[in-house]
């Protein structure tokens, strides 16, 4: 990695990195999430999205704060509001891919928060 040797370097780097991104799924992978089974959910999402050849980024993130509803999965798909699914298990993870990402319909009974 090249060192950033001035403030201009940093600003340039930031510009490069700030590409608008749309289709992504984020899994909360801090202690609270991992304890509730986030690793399994993450692995399922990665595996199943690959199987289906989906154009979606599966990412990791920290704790959102809603520890009571871990594992949390946040989904942003064009044309749909950004929602946070809670208490996600393998089954819901697959539903999120099939119904939300591919079918553009939100999944019932699992939405815990709305990020606008």
């Amino acid at each position: 990695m090249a060192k950033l040797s001035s403030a201009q370097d940093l600003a340039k780097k930031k510009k490069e990195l700030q590409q608008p991104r749309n289709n992504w799924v984020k899994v909360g992978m801090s202690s609270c999430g991992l304890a509730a089974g986030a690793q399994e959910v993450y692995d399922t999402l990665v595996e199943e999205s690959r199987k289906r050849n989906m154009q979606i980024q599966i990412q990791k993130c920290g704790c959102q704060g809603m520890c009571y509803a871990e594992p949390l999965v946040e989904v942003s798909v064009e044309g749909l509001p950004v929602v946070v699914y809670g208490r996600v298990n393998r089954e819901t993870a697959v539903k999120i891919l099939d119904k939300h990402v591919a079918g553009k319909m939100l999944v019932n009974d699992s939405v815990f928060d709305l990020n606008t």
Partner: protein
Amino acid sequence: MDKKIIFIKDTDSQAADRTRDFYTAFLDQLREDGLQDEVQVLRVADIGIYSQGVVVKVLPAGMTYGKVKDADIKRIIESSVKKDQVVEDLLLKREPKQLRIVLRNCGVIDPDSIDEYIAADGYAALAKVIHGYTPEKVIEELKASGLRGRGGAGYPTWMKWNFTRQSKSEEKYIICNADEGDPGAYMDRSVLEGDPHSVIEGMIIAGFAIGASNGFFYIRAEYPLAVERINKAIKQAYDYGLLGSNILGSNFSFDLDVRLGAGAFVCGEETALIASIEGRRGTPRPRPPYPSREGLWGKPTAINNVETLANIAAIILRGGKWFSSIGTEKSKGTKVFALTGKVKNSGLVEVPMGTTLRDIVFDIGGGTISGKGIKAVQTGGPSGGVIPKEYLDTPVDYENLQKLGSIMGSGGMIVMDEDDCMVDITKFYLGFCVDESCGKCAPCRLGGYQLLGMLTRISEGHGVAGDLEKIRKISEAMRKASLCGLGQTASNPVSSTLNYFESEYKEHILSKKCPAHKCKHLITYSIMQGRCKRCRVCVMNCPVNAIGGDRETGFYIELDKCIKCGKCFEACKFSAILKE
């Protein structure tokens, strides 16, 4: 245009859930209007609103309606779904209660990626400081912000930095205190795990301001993931030249390293923490001299809490004035709380200072799990106290909590309902402090032990009339004579519960009764024959075979065998077990 979506959730937790009924009703109505393909109806698990009946939210406009009745369904679809108009009389107007400064990136960026942090304005504050600020100006900015230490005591951060800056020495240090040990508090862990770079950036800026070229993270070893992520983040920052020599082409150099705490609560106290980093036994020493004069290896040292440091970059970027516009007169900015205990939505909340406990517990936390009333809220961990329900409308800031006999502390907030016994809770906190006392000074070592002994006796039904007087005396002695904060505040939970719930103590001592039915020695279980259906579920669940009798003659509990575990009470579907 985005598709219309209708969110539905029944927010009354006590009655039967009507979410599905309304879901079907909405679907039927939409079908009647021929809209079923254009609108999605969604049952959500949580809508962020509590005790408002059936709540309906229409997206993308986001109108939120509360206490929706069957008759309103048609109206909502006519106005809000077909025409984007608001149904005024059902509208819930709500201001967002939370404000995220410290947790700005937590749950948003990938903590393992410095690139995502940079894309989210990361290290911009560092660049601004290094290339345009004098150290004095950084301290000026912090003074304007009014930021106070988030570790608990609330000492103004700018003063701490200023003292350290003014101490003359070739070498100075900055330490990040991540030895978070209060039971039920995990704000710092979440920040370290979710946004490690924000703390690192805060430390580099702190180093610049006080004139230090070395910094240490002191993280408790019980946080392996936090340690892993901080180590990774430090390495990434070195690779980018954001740590090390000549940061961003300036002549400022700064190195950062991690030290692990070996699991002693007292090492969160700054002088004990310093001893621990130096490789000595982690015991506190009397202050002064304060670490800002003689700290790590005798050099001036500034020690800041994780949350304090996570605020720094935001303050530099948006200005001290902006920060000071949030909060109350004397407590600025926001505070992160770890909301736990008998609350429905336990988790991390970040609210502006001055938010009331009621807002935090009911509007964000959703009230109690059991639906029972709240008895008290405990803040400040083992150094704090309880705030009874009469004071739930107090705006939370450093001064107000102190006035109520508690403290802000690092941000643990434990909600207790009517099933919690104050003597029991106090015993727990005191037991924690007795365990963690380093034993160096007598008031804490002996006082704590004696207090715990007395509380144990009271909870076992052996309390005597003079006990409360004695407890008060010992508490006072500990508060005045202990060497460090741990001992001085260890009796806080005792004095605060004694202050608000003296009658409960008396009940234990004089009538040998525990009003909350929590203290094992003071309760008995029995079977109410009138209600018992003789299903034998209690017999099956009893781990010590203390339930005798048979289906013909009925069952009874043999009190000499009973260990009072409460299994039968929980297992009985007919509420036929009496606990008294």
